[in-house]
């Protein structure tokens, strides 16, 4: 395969992955509205390029730490869609046996360490995962995803310093969607250039257009390669936007329609899709076929999740301590 053909194939895969996430999230809204899913539901519609661009830069044995807005990260990591839906339905076939729900997706077999719903709470854990890999001389990288809100937390600053001090192979990926719930970055930070602040800890640091999946992918590859090669931790500020409210409870009164519309013009899915159409890589029929494949996968996944069993109440207290045989 020539380089350009491989790039075409890669870009088609990126589009497919982003579409899977977008349609997954849209189906989740429907399922939430019909009360099949309860609890909190945080959608990443608009932020798909971050999930797909970062996750594809990792190897199968690398580790991932994520947040409560992690459906896209989990899907891009390869957690089966059925296991994610089942988790949100609280079924035993869920990727956390139904114990976690939307905010707590885990998959140890894919080194996907969740699913942390305390803002910045996963960041120290990512540092520790990288420490374990470094101490055991495994050439692995830990990708740590979090939002811009985390940059106000002490754990963020403590962790960046510690990772830099010990030169650990962590790639800190700040998914800057401009709002910590309803508080805009500029309303909570005196210095809003997060990449600049990260650089002050001695990390290599880049600000990236988080709506451009190719830019995210290329930056993530560079950061992952740097960390893996012993260059110490890296920081990516991925500037993006969530098109939907913070959660299903959020009336979204804190930002204007014009602002949302402006960002929607840079919809990451459409940006890539239109580029591929313009270049003749895909046509409208192929795009429609892609949509149909994704829709069919979602239908199958929802069906399987709905058919799965609930955990018996007698098992309530399992998994508080390990079951040692």
């Amino acid at each position, binding site marked *: 395969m020539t380089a350009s053909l491989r790039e075409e194939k890669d870009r088609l895969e990126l589009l497919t992955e982003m579409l899977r996430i977008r349609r997954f999230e849209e189906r989740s809204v429907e399922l939430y509205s019909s009360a099949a899913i309860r609890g909190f539901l945080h959608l990443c519609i608009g932020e798909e390029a971050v999930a797909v661009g970062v996750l594809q830069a990792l190897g199968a044995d690398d*580790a991932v*730490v994520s947040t409560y807005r992690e459906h896209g990260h989990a899907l891009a990591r390869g957690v089966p869609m059925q296991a994610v839906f089942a988790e949100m339905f609280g079924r035993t076939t*869920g*990727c*956390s*046996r*139904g*114990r*976690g729900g939307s905010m*707590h997706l*885990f*998959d*140890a077999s894919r080194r996907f*360490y*969740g*699913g*942390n719903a*305390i803002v910045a*709470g996963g*960041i*120290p*854990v*990512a*540092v*520790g*995962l*990288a*420490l*374990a*890999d470094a*101490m*055991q001389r495994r050439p692995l990288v*830990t990708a740590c995803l979090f939002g811009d809100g985390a940059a106000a937390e*002490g*754990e963020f600053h*403590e*962790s960046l*310093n*510690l990772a830099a*001090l010990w030169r650990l192979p962590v790639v800190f990926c700040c998914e800057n969607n401009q709002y910590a719930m309803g508080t805009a970055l500029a309303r909570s930070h005196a210095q809003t250039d997060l990449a600049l602040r990260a650089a002050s800890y001695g990390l290599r640091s880049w600000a990236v257009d988080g709506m451009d999946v190719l830019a995210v992918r290329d930056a993530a590859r560079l950061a992952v390669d740097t960390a893996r090669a012993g260059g110490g931790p890296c920081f990516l500020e991925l500037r993006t936007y969530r098109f939907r409210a913070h959660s299903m409870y959020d009336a979204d009164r804190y930002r204007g329609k014009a602002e949302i519309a402006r960002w929607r013009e840079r919809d990451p899915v459409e940006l890539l899709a239109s580029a591929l159409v313009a270049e003749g890589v895909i046509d409208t029929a192929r795009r429609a076929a892609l949509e149909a494949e994704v829709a069919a996968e979602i239908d199958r996944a929802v069906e399987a999740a709905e058919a799965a069993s609930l955990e018996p109440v007698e098992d309530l207290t*399992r*998994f*508080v*301590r*390990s*079951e*040692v045989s």
Partner: protein
Amino acid sequence: MSTTTYREAFRAGLREALAVDDRVFLMGEDVGRYGGCFAVSQGLLEEFGEQRIRDTPLSESAFVGAGIGAALGGMRPIVEIMTVNFSLLALDQILNNAATLLHMSGGQLGVPVVIRIPTGPGRQLAAQHSHTLEGWYAHIPGLRVVAPATLADARGMLATALIDPDPVLIFEQIALYGASGELADDAGPVDLDHAVVRRPGSDVTLVAYGGSLAPALAAAEELAVDGVSAEVVDLRTLRPLDTETVLESVRRTHRLVVVDNGWRSGSLSAEIAARVAEHALYELDAPVERVCAVEVPIPYPRHLEEAALPGPADVMAAARRAVG
């Protein structure tokens, strides 16, 4: 038998753990070059090197979280938090991650981290370095919480804690580090499941743990002079509580005094009293007595610090009320 201090006993436990398992490492504030705030880890940096004895920044949340992550990544970290009041800066990691990940992940992610926390009063360290917060941690499902109060437990609890596939918190009494006593030359791992009767008796049960064991034993000694036979139960493990050993003792003595350096309200002493009420109320010949810390932040002057804490005289008075 050899004479040794608690500090040396803890250090011997650490040295052995580091020697027998490459996955074990120690990290915390001043554990390396300084030798440990209370000199427990003195010499370990020189013996085991920078990779395994890691000085951390003053970032409790980050290095406790890093211990959790390293445990997930296949290591067996021992994390030292300089004193119990500082552990509150890492409470997010201890509660929301260490204690919770296994359950939240449906059984996938065990967290075999050991966290050592110097605790307790007695050194005039005032209101931000002297508290007894073990009871708070014992409230949390998912943790094992242990309180070594003897040299053998100081020497042997760490090894057993490191075998546990789940998080273990070891609360070390600051006031005991310098105390000395006799320890068997072949002292080694001890069980972490059972309370122990430290002194048998027949008239009244004194339940204590950690820093309250010494005043309970001293009181028992004095009571014996007066002809009152007090049995002293050392809880040792605060979660999960060994209720049965307490109940067995109460069934023999029919009287209960709980001695707790923690504040009375919502304390471990309250938990013990409640369990005895639930399971052995009709065994009791007198109301349960509790001797706890007075509900003030621990003050600096020695006379006020002593007045705030259970002392042998307080325990004796409570035991006499119970015996009637």
